[in-house]
């Protein structure tokens, strides 16, 4: 496979704008303050995300979205990952993709416009636990036995319980769906097995892009520390025992970004290897992000083990993002089958 990578200046503009806005709006002190807050997020941010058009970035134009593709989404996810965005943009995006992939035309027409506008908040519940953004969602795309259904947060039989989470920049909830009886118009036409399978490639790519941004931020954070922190009268980054593991993180981050943009290019060009590349990206992302985070904590030394150092924020994000839509082992199991059993 010789993956071709597409790029244009418009993507560079999106990256620059996203980075500027995120840097200004989410300095790490504010991310920490939101992580420590009861809600975990600020509703004003959600309005801004809607105003920027990011909630509907990949939603087709006829439903009010921007109708953009995988490359645009990858750029945006990479930038939000860099800043540990404490707002469920990814969860909403996955729910939007689920509606696009698996909803009926009537459901798309009814629900995508308010999702894009930020009026109705969506969360995707492929499983009843670890539902990102679940506590404050208005509507769930939730698995109910052998179907998926749209379930309103106000549904009397539905119970939404906030989970106590490791990564407090990404909140989640546990749903109890016993007794929820959706009407026919709330049932998605796509089967319960089929929808996650259809969603997985794009979800893997979005997750891998977000993880690439986080790993890249960790690399910058740790390299800057190693260049200035002195022991034995020298910056610790001059020691090969510190320098070489950081370069190993660099090798991982660069390879991960290449796989992410190769996969995104394949999606946008409609090429058949898109899913393979997306799963490769997710497999690589799981390993690289956790490795980058562990090296960040370790190389910050005693300070790295404290809550004051930012490394642990990313470490927790890496650990909790890893299983979503399949960890590295699960991705490699899929890839091995594609490579060996065809």
């Amino acid at each position: 496979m010789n993956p071709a990578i597409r790029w244009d200046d418009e993507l560079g503009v999106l990256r620059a704008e996203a980075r500027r806005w995120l840097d200004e709006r989410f300095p790490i002190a504010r991310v920490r303050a939101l992580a420590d807050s009861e809600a975990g997020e600020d509703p004003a941010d959600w309005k801004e995300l809607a105003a920027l058009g990011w909630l509907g970035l990949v939603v087709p134009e006829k439903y009010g979205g921007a109708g953009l593709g995988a490359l645009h989404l990858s750029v945006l996810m990479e930038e939000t990952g860099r800043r540990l965005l404490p707002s469920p943009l990814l969860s909403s995006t996955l729910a939007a993709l689920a509606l696009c992939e698996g909803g009926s035309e009537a459901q798309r027409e009814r629900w995508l416009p308010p999702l894009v506008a930020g009026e109705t908040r969506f969360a995707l519940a492929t499983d009843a636990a670890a539902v990102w953004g679940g506590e404050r969602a208005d509507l769930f795309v939730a698995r109910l036995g052998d179907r998926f259904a749209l379930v309103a947060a106000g549904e009397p039989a539905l119970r939404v319980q906030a989970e106590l989470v490791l990564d407090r920049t990404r909140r989640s909830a546990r749903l109890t769906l016993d007794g929820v009886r959706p009407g026919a118009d709330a049932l998605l036409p796509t089967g319960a097995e089929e929808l996650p399978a259809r969603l997985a490639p794009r979800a893997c790519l979005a997750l891998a892009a977000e993880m690439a941004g986080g790993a890249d931020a960790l690399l910058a954070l740790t390299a800057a520390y190693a260049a200035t922190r002195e022991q034995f009268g020298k910056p610790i980054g001059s020691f090969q025992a510190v320098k070489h593991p950081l370069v190993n993180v660099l090798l991982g981050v660069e390879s991960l970004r290449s796989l992410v943009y190769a996969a995104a290019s394949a999606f946008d060009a409609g090429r058949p290897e898109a899913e393979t590349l997306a799963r490769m990206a997710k497999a690589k992302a799981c390993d690289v992000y956790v490795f980058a985070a562990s090296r960040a904590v370790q190389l910050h030394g005693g300070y790295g083990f404290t809550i004051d150092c930012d490394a642990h924020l990313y470490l927790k994000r890496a650990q909790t993002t890893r299983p979503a839509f399949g960890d590295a082992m699960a991705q490699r199991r899929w890839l091995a089958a594609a490579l060996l059993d065809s």
Partner: protein
Amino acid sequence: MDEHETLRAEVRAWIGCNHPGDPGWKLPQSALEVADDRQFGWLRDWQRKLYDAGWVGAEWPAEYGGGGRPRGAQRAIDQELARARAPFLLNLVGLSWAGPVILHYGSEAQKRRLLRPLLRCDEIWCQGFSEPGAGSDLAALATRALRSGDGWEIDGHKVWTTLGRYADWCILLARSDPAAAKHAGISYFLAPMKIPGVSVQPLVKMTGEGGFNQVIWSRARIPADALLGREGQGWEIATATLQFERGAAEGSAGGQGGGTSDVARLVALARGLERGGRPALEDPLVRDRLAQFWVDETALRANAGRALVAGLVAERPAALPLMSKLASSEHGQALADFACELLGPAAGLWIGDPHAPENAEWQRSYLNSFALTIAGGTSEILRNILGERVLGLPKTR
């Protein structure tokens, strides 16, 4: 890539009719292992044939024997040749390191004299950089260049000289000013090899193969016009040469298409093997490792693709070029090691044993893989360079 589609089709059609096939005896795995005259003659004829067809030096200027084609053409040609499993190009040091450097730093007379025979394999090039006392610390080299009459007199001891036995020319680093600072006193020469005072002695590699030499320069007189660039500019040009050697700079005249998929070869191997009485491909641990190699091989290729996209390398432009040799050589080594592990006890058999799978090609690949993690800057030196130039870490030392 699509802009070269016509060219690619031409190359495919040509190689379809002109593939030399298997000579019926053991070819070396790369230009680093050319050990006997039969191999040498066969490979020289092959490069000539490619040159005459226009597939070598495709992007180099026509006045120096090149094809004058646009940027990217050589890469397209190399990829098509690699895909057709065409044999490698013999004059590696000339095509990929010496030639591009001469194009950049050479005088008009040097370019006119040296480049065409280099492309056509009429003259073979070798590299005189490393010395017994100057490996990773290359600038510690002790070979002397003394002004003598109209030219220079060279005294010194060079090692790791690939193709040294066959070479007509050598890109030679020597200390021309012993009083100057370490890096400043070095000059870069395009030195003739077939002259009095140059003695080439074969070194035997751990594979038992030759192809690798040490060269003793003993009062060897070379002309004034052998100097490349200015006196004392040697370190700068050596650094540029290493950029080409590490695949960090573009400009090669050919032979850089990359192998066909090593993972595909590994899978083919695994398909025929058993572990514990069951097909190896049913072992979930084997499957996981194979998938991992597939991910990594694809990432290497995606890296090569992304390196060409300015908008996606703007933040660390040096990273992908500088990591290319490091990442690919370590991947290749790990993959060959895993192949040997899969072979089980048969990995202990060597070339010629009737029971050695693929005539011990994987064992040979594994041993040879260390050439790539050591030559052109060891993996350790490259990690230092990446840490310092790309991550901005303070210098080691």
